[in-house]
């Protein structure tokens, strides 16, 4: 099943539950199993949280687009916050004590662990587009 669904929300932490519900519904409709859906939900939650807390730090909009591309689920989290590329962020080694990735570091670590690819794009008009990609089982 293919198709593209998108929606936008105010950049507010109280929207997280609604955002997760939207992504969960899309992921399941697009063929993700329970395990894949959970991983995507956790990753999207961290991406949105980082955008709200560390990107905007105030009012703004979060746009989410979910689509299936062959055997992959793509979730794009877009905002108009100052550019920040999480894919260039230092990798955390959770087995080493006191690794400090600073603000948002935990979320980025989780996104990396929970997805198969993360693709970052800085649109010319500004803002950020982070696509979280999960390979789906047949």
């Amino acid at each position, binding site marked *: 099943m293919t198709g593209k669904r998108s929606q936008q929300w105010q950049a507010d*932490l*109280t929207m*997280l*539950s609604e955002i*997760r519900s939207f992504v969960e519904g899309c992921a399941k409709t697009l063929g993700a199993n329970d395990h894949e859906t*959970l*991983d995507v*939900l*956790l990753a999207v*939650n*961290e991406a949105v*949280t980082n955008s*709200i*807390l560390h990107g905007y730090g105030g009012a703004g909009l979060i746009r989410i687009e979910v689509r299936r591309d062959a055997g992959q689920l793509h979730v794009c989290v877009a905002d108009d916050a100052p550019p920040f590329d999480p894919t260039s962020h230092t990798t*955390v080694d*959770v*087995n080493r*004590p*006191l*690794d*400090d*990735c*600073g*603000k*948002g*570091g*935990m*979320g980025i*670590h*989780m996104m990396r*662990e*929970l997805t198969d690819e993360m693709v970052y794009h800085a649109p010319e008009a500004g803002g950020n587009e982070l696509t979280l990609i999960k390979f789906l089982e047949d």
Partner: protein
Amino acid sequence: MEILSSQASGHVPVTIITLKGALDGSNYESLIAAGRSAHAAGAKAILLDLSELTFMSSAGLVALHNLYAILKDETEPDPEAGWATLKTVGNAGQAGGQPFVKLLNPQPAVKRTLEITGMYTFFEVHTDRETALQSF
């Protein structure tokens, strides 16, 4: 998320904090506040009943760590400080056996967060309430 507190006795008095719903960046401070209240009322041990917690983000991990620090009478870590705040639990090299905060019955979604962040081993996890209470 709904937070319920109750008292029980094992070898020592234990405060049971039951979480229902989803724990994320919008509400993790409520859990920290519940921990502060319990501590102010004399709690020395907290069993977090996660049987009905359906989701936990990294913000939830921050809350767990704050509960640990509160009961250990440490300075509460800055929730915004990121990864380092959590790693202090692991750095203590004792958290798996620490007597302050233990977890009861985490569901798969919550377990996933604990596991991929390396935090699962830092909290003693139980699946039986009585066993958990007696472990304090």
